[in-house]
């Protein structure tokens, strides 16, 4: 019987997948990684939070998301480290002077030659520049070209797409019955009325399940600021009293009825 493959500090593939679920980074210098995604390492590596003083310059050039700062650390040193996440599929991607937006929970690590910026789409981050990054997905990643509509839960990210937007199937507004249905959920909804719509040139990454990475508060939009989509406390325009949201409600229909 031949046993499992044994890896050591030298046979671990540098900057490549060990198996579909684990990725080996050949570290010499610095990498950004999300907290708790390192499973093992050889060599001398230290982990420091983003707020660590000596990292100030690095953070200033390649980390532009104060929201996510508490979820990221910088690995520094020399050695090989293994990254993995909940036995999800892990892949590395090379970006060449490009941009890619990805669900914040799916990004595991990236090289500091890339810059991380918070996307204006809440819950997503954008990577800009040239370099390598590692991302996880539940099931294999599929690449599709726009125009395409994607289930929100299956979306991992997109590259170079100019206009990601929401798409609602028109059904919810058709007639009084449609309105009632949407408001109450009675009569059944397929659960697929809402999609993300991508048009133009680019690539969209989707995963093969609708199970999301357990998200921490990473997707929360920044605190109240005029003009920031989805910003908390933006209900000011509608008076203090908030209507309790009914399940299955789409697009603030009650407002149309003056409720």
């Amino acid at each position, binding site marked *: 019987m031949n*046993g*499992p493959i044994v890896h*050591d500090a030298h046979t671990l593939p540098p900057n490549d997948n060990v198996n579909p679920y684990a990725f080996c980074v050949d570290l010499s210098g610095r990498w950004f990684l999300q907290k*708790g995604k390192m499973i093992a390492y*050889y060599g001398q590596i230290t*982990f420091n939070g983003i*707020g660590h003083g000596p990292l100030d310059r690095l953070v200033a050039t390649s980390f532009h998301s104060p929201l996510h700062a*508490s979820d990221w650390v910088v690995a520094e040193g020399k050695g090989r480290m*293994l990254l993995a996440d909940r*036995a999800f599929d892990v892949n590395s991607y090379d970006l060449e002077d490009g941009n890619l937006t990805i669900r914040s929970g799916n990004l595991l690590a990236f090289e500091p030659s890339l810059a991380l910026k918070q996307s204006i789409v809440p819950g997503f981050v954008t990577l800009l520049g040239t370099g390598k990054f590692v991302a996880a997905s539940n099931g294999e990643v599929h690449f599709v070209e726009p125009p395409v509509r994607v289930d929100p839960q299956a979306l991992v990210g997109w590259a170079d797409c100019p206009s990601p937007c929401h798409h609602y199937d028109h059904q919810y507004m058709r007639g009084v019955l449609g309105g009632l249905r949407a408001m109450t959920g009675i009569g059944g909804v397929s659960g697929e009325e809402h999609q993300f719509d991508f048009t133009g040139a680019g690539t969209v990454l989707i995963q093969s399940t609708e199970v999301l990475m357990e998200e921490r508060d990473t997707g929360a939009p920044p605190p109240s600021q005029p003009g920031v989509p989805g910003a908390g406390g933006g209900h000011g325009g509608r008076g203090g009293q908030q209507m309790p949201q009914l399940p299955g409600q789409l697009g603030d229909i009650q407002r149309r009825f003056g409720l």
Partner: protein
Amino acid sequence: MAQFRLQGGKVLAVDLAGDTVRAKNGSMVAYDGQMAFKKLTGGGEGLRGLVTRRLTGEQMEMMEVKGQGTCYFADRASDIGLVTLQGQKLHVESSNLLCADGSLRTGTTFTGLRGASQGNGLFTTTVEGTGTAALMSDGPAVVLRVTPQSPLQVDPGAYVAHTGDLRQEFQTGVNFRTFMGEGSGESFQIRFEGEGLVYVQPSERNTIGGDV
């Protein structure tokens, strides 16, 4: 001796010819031939083992399978890895042990501080002797070799098992930043030194130290 085979990574098939294996209680999914399943109280380690396991919290519900034919084991679609032992000692978390040859001895040992950070208790299960044992992990386990020149650090949440002559040391990077909410999330590691193999799963259990 029982023959262990993997069927597609998540199912273990064991060919038995009148011999016995010990498996996690309730992990049989199918069998061919004649099989008898006997619950083993306290992991089949006798009264002393029973008491030790109760006291240490390293509880293990095992059953003894005896018969002729092929028995299939699986548990919650966990990935399974086989470890062949020739007199060495395998240290494994009791929750990760699926099946062991009947000729292997199992026991409990003190692991030190590592267990505390894992939330798995201070004790671990040992498997000793000659034969095959099957380990479960969340995602296929990666086997990493430790040599005196290249010690290995492992996240406690990803540790599954180890064999060989290894010293383990609990390593912390806790400093004042940790208490200010500026922790690195990788503050706790187990450092393995010596000569041996470490099994690591591509996933992290929820650990007490995991978020620090």
